[in-house]
C-alpha cells in the first residue's frame, strides 16, 4: 500500500546521512566521552563537533549549547531552572495558552510551588497581543516563555519583537523552538533569546536527544543533578550517537533551509488550496496567512466528523496525519490549542493536522486530495450532526 507520512510535527524519520553518522558510535566508538582513554577520546571530539553544528544553526557559540534527552526536558530545565535560580528576584512567569504541554504542565507544577503564571490568551487565529504581553510584565516577572512555532497550527510567533520587549524590561526570555528549528531560520542573537529548546526527532535526528541554548551568563539551576557532564549543567552519560546525529541533522537543515522550506511550502499550499476547493464546510485553524505559519503545517477542521475516525480512514489509505480530537489523545478534552483559539468544541474534535516533511512529493499531495473528499463525505453521512 502507498504510505504517505504527513505527521512530521509528531516525529520525523531519521535522515539517511544522520543514521550513517550515528552508526559508528554504537559498537566501534562506543566509549564514554568523559573517559581519559582511547575509547573516551574518540567520542569526546565527536560530541564537541556536534555542539558546533547545533550552535551554528541557531547562531550561538558552542559553549552555550547543552545536550538534553528531548524537547520536554529542555522546557522543564528552562522553566524550573529559572525559577530556582531567580526566585530571589521574583515569582512571576508569563507564557501563553497555546504552549506545548512540556511548558504548560511544567507551569502548572510550578504554580503548586507558589509561582504565579500569566497565561496569555490568543485570538481566533491563535495569535498574541503584544501589548497585552507587555502589560503583564511586573517587577516580579522573571521569565517570558513563548514558543517559536505552534505544533498544532504551525503559527509563527513574533519572537524578535517579544525578545525586544523582554530586553527592554530586562526579563529573561525562553522560547520552545522545537517545531521551528530546521524549518525556518532561527537566530538567537537577532531574537534576543536567552533560552531556546530544540528536539532532534523533529528535524531528522533520532528520538531521545535534544538541546538547550543557554545564553552566556544566564544563571540556570541544573535540572538533572549528578555527574560533571556538560560542565555541570546536565548530568548523565552523553547519548553520543544521538548527539552526533543531531549535529549532522542541524548541519543538513542549515544547508538546505531555504530551498527545502520553499519546496515544502509549495506542497503545503497545494494541499491547503486543494482541500479548501474540494471539501465544503471546513475551517482552517491557525493564521489564515500561510506565510505566518510553518511552511509545512496545515490544520483544518472537517465539520461533523470526529478526528480519530477520520485518521483511521486516512490510515487505511496509508496516509498518516494527526488530530486535535480528545479521542486520539486518551484525554477527555480536545486540543487546548483549539480551545484557546475559541474553536467550537465539535470543530476542535474534528481538527486535523497535516505536517509535511522531507520525503513528501507533489504526488503525495495529489493522492491525499483524491482520497480525502469521499472519506469525509462518507463519515459525514454517518454523523448525527450532519444535515445534507
Amino acid at each position, binding site marked *: 500500500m502507498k504510505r504517505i507520512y504527513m505527521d512530521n510535527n509528531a516525529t520525523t524519520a531519521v535522515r539517511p546521512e544522520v543514521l550513517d553518522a550515528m552508526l559508528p558510535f554504537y559498537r566501534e566508538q562506543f566509549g564514554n566521552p568523559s573517559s581519559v582513554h582511547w575509547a573516551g577520546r574518540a567520542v569526546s571530539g565527536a560530541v564537541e563537533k556536534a555542539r558546533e553544528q547545533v550552535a551554528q544553526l541557531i547562531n550561538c557559540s558552542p559553549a552555550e549549547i547543552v545536550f538534553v534527552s528531548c524537547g520536554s526536558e529542555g522546557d522543564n530545565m528552562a522553566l524550573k531552572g529559572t525559577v530556582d535560580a531567580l526566585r530571589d528576584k521574583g515569582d512571576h512567569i508569563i507564557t501563553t495558552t497555546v504552549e506545548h504541554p512540556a511548558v504548560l504542565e511544567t507551569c502548572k507544577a510550578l504554580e503548586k510551588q507558589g509561582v504565579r503564571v500569566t497565561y496569555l490568551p490568543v485570538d481566533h487565529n491563535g495569535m498574541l497581543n503584544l501589548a497585552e504581553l507587555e502589560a503583564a510584565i511586573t517587577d516580579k516577572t522573571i521569565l517570558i516563555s513563548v514558543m517559536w512555532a505552534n505544533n498544532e497550527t504551525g503559527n509563527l510567533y513574533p519572537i524578535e519583537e517579544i525578545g525586544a520587549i523582554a530586553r527592554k524590561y530586562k526579563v529573561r526570555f525562553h522560547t520552545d523552538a522545537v517545531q521551528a528549528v530546521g524549518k525556518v531560520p532561527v537566530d538567537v542573537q537577532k531574537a534576543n533569546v536567552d533560552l531556546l529548546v530544540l528536539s532532534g526527532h523533529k528535524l531528522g535526528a533520532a528520538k531521545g536527544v535534544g538541546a538547550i541554548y543557554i545564553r552566556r551568563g544566564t544563571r540556570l539551576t541544573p535540572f538533572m543533578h549528578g555527574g560533571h557532564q556538560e560542565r555541570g549543567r546536565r548530568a548523565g552519560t552523553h547519548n553520543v550517537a544521538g548527539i552526533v546525529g543531531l549535529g549532522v541533522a542541524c548541519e543538513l537543515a542549515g544547508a538546505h533551509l531555504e530551498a527545502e522550506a520553499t519546496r515544502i511550502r509549495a506542497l503545503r499550499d497545494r494541499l491547503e488550496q486543494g482541500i479548501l476547493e474540494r471539501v465544503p464546510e471546513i475551517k482552517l485553524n491557525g493564521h489564515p496567512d500561510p506565510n505566518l505559519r510553518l511552511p509545512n503545517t496545515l490544520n483544518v477542521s472537517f465539520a*461533523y*466528523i*470526529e478526528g*480519530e*475516525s477520520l485518521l*483511521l480512514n486516512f490510515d*487505511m489509505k496509508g496516509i498518516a496525519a494527526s488530530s486535535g*480530537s*480528545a*479521542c*486520539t489523545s*486518551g484525554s*477527555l478534552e*480536545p486540543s487546548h490549542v483549539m480551545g484557546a483559539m475559541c474553536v467550537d*468544541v*465539535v470543530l476542535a*474534535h474534528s481538527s486535523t493536522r497535516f505536517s509535511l516533511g522531507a520525503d513528501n512529493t507533489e504526488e503525495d499531495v495529489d493522492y491525499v486530495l483524491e482520497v480525502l473528499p469521499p472519506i469525509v463525505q462518507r463519515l459525514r*453521512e*454517518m*454523523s*448525527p*450532526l450532519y444535515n445534507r
Partner: protein
Amino acid sequence: MYSEKVMDHFTNPRNVGEIENADGVGEVGNASCGDIMKIFLKVEDNVIKDIKFKTFGCGAAIATSSMVTEMAIGKTLDEALELTNAAVAEALDGLPAQKMHCSNLAADALHEAIKNYKETHSA
C-alpha cells in the same frame, strides 16, 4: 490498537442511517466529549424489525454502534433491554481501556430508543 472485529465494523458499519418516522429514537453522548450516538427503531409486535444509527465519534464509537444494531435486530424489546455495553464490547473481541468512556454508549443509546418507543407508544 483495535481488534479485527472492531476494524471490520468500523470500516463496514452495518445499519448506518436514519429511519423516517421511526417508532423510537435514542440519543446519548455529548458533542463536547467528542461522541454522539443516535439510534432509530422500527418496532412491530414488540420486536425490533429495523434499526439504524448515526454516530459522531471515534472508531470504537462507530464500531460499537454498528455492533449493537446487529445484536438488537430481531430481538424483542425486553431481550434488547438486556443487552449490555459489556456484551457489545465482548462481541467486538474487546476494546482498548482508554476507549471505555465512548464504548459505554452503544447499549445506552439502544435503551434510550426503546424507552422513547415505550413512552410514545404506551397504551
